[in-house]
């Protein structure tokens, strides 16, 4: 193996957080194997990104083309495939983002390269790379090896790899890429940012957050009552929005809002990582869930293992008594 390649992403004039995270992991793996770390950035106007990436990477490949201004996975796939065939990195690393989900599986097929997605650990074992990924709702960790291949593709879970500051001055290679094909079978129509909505849960000091465990929409009432008693607001996990019980502006997590309240009550929420990424900044977390193995208990200060629909009415009563 001659190198490890990290493919980065940027939006709204900033590199994605997950790109810094996998870049740090890539740096570590490259140092351990004593190989070069390549960072790839693709688009137009790349200078600032390239300079930033050069703090971690030995070499930054900044690939420019007007075709790369739009978020279309297909031209990116051509570019990355070309770079991999040319540079032959042993590992290609990317964040497990919505963009990677569109891009990396087809890349794996095109290159005939093995792929493991959404990994929480990536490590050397007898000069082979192994990965660990959670399966079965995070209740089991599975460690995988790859079939013999010049290159393997790995995507790393968001929030899983700490960013280690670096201060290198890697070389920057500017590459112009000309496409031989049109991508007229797929046309990008535009972005839409999440709407602000009437309630801003990111500003709330106390969040009464509900999940699947509340069972029915009409049960929301008792949680609204609890929120009102505590001077907080009701937020939720993804299923509650999917069911149409609360608007998406109330959703906490990867595809919703990131919150840092003083108190986070996770009620009937099991704590899928997509949810926990959005609430781990809470100063105090209390979880009520009937599943004692629910991952949310691992980030909670206090927990009650029971049915929220039984505990919450009692909690409303007790708080009312104590406030009188």
């Amino acid at each position, binding site marked *: 193996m001659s190198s490890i390649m990290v493919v980065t992403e940027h939006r709204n004039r900033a590199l994605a957080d997950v790109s810094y995270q996998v870049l740090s992991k890539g740096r570590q793996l490259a140092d351990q194997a004593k190989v070069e770390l390549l960072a790839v950035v693709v688009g137009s106007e790349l200078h600032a990104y390239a300079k930033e990436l050069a703090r971690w990477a030995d070499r930054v490949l900044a690939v420019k083309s007007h075709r790369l201004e739009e*978020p279309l996975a*297909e031209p990116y796939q051509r570019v990355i495939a070309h770079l991999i065939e040319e540079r032959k990195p042993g590992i290609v690393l990317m964040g*497990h983002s*919505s963009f990677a*989900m*569109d891009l990396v*599986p*087809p890349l*794996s*097929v*095109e290159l005939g*390269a*093995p*792929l493991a*997605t*959404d990994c929480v650990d990536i490590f050397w074992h007898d000069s082979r790379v*192994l990965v660990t*990924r*959670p*399966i*079965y*709702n*995070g*209740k*089991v*960790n*599975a*460690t*995988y090896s790859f079939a013999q291949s010049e290159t393997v593709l790995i995507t790393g879970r968001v929030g899983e790899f700490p960013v280690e500051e670096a201060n290198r001055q890697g070389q920057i290679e500017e590459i112009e890429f000309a496409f031989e094909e049109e991508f007229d*079978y*797929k*046309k*990008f*129509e535009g*972005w*839409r*940012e*999440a709407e602000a909505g009437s309630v801003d849960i990111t500003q709330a000091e106390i969040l009464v957050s509900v999940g699947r465990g509340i069972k029915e929409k009409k049960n929301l009432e008792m949680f609204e009552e609890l929120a009102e008693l*505590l001077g907080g607001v009701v937020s939720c996990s*993804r299923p509650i929005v999917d*069911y149409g019980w609360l608007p998406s502006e109330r*959703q906490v997590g*990867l595809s919703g*809002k990131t919150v840092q309240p*003083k*108190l986070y009550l996770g009620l009937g929420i099991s704590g899928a990582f997509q949810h926990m990424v959005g609430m781990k900044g809470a100063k105090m977390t*209390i979880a009520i869930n009937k*599943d004692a193995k629910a991952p949310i208990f*691992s980030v909670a200060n*206090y*927990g*009650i*293992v*029971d049915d929220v629909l039984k*505990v919450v009415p*009692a909690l409303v*009563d*007790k*708080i009312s008594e*104590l406030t009188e």
Partner: protein
Amino acid sequence: MDIIACIKRVPDTSEADVVKIDPSQRDIEKGRLVFKINDWDEYVLEAAVQLKEKLSGTLTTVTVGPKDWDEVLRRALAMGADSAIRIDQDVSADDPHTVAIILKKAIQRLPYDLVLFGAQSEDFSSGQLGATVAEMLGIPHATLVTGLEAEVGKVHVQRELEAGTLQSYTIELPALLTIHTGINQPRYISMGGIRRAMQKELQVVSLHDLDLSPETLAPMVRLEKLELPPKGKEAELISGAPEEAAGQLAKRLKDAGIF
């Protein structure tokens, strides 16, 4: 419009208190787990049925698995699928690439304008199967679709990204989409629907029928070991009956100055 919906059956581990690794160290003990249709695939079926109702055409649903997997196909038939195909192969220990090869072979033999997958599965959650099959079929794709409208020859889709940001695309057919939860409200299945579904025939296809053999399906990724996740920080648990636990919690919240 001819649609193919690929669905799977998964063990429900979301509230399973005890998930144990079986003695082989290659899988979990599934004996006491309840199996169900993958969450994402309910949204796949609803999206497919809605398109069929609007634009007519055929809806074929496909799964890969042993006999018990028929139950998710029956569900699909009850929701409105015209036909159901089960590829009779236990792939629960296979990597997504292997499953993709099998599905590609099955899909190629069928008429289709649109192929739908769930954006991910609840059990292995790789989120890679649909886009892998799209590349193998040589058709365009979009993953994580939360909005879908079809017209002759093309689809308008909306993808959901991080922090609720949406992207829109127009994609020419044939195409493959992976469907995210929340795109629709899956319909309730009536008893009548289930009864009618029981009378429809399921096609069972072998690997041999697809010109495949187990030897041609070399895995790209191999399972080395399974482990229970390391115990992290544990919450201080408040025990007792609901009233008692609630009382203690209320007191702690008061002590912490919450109210």
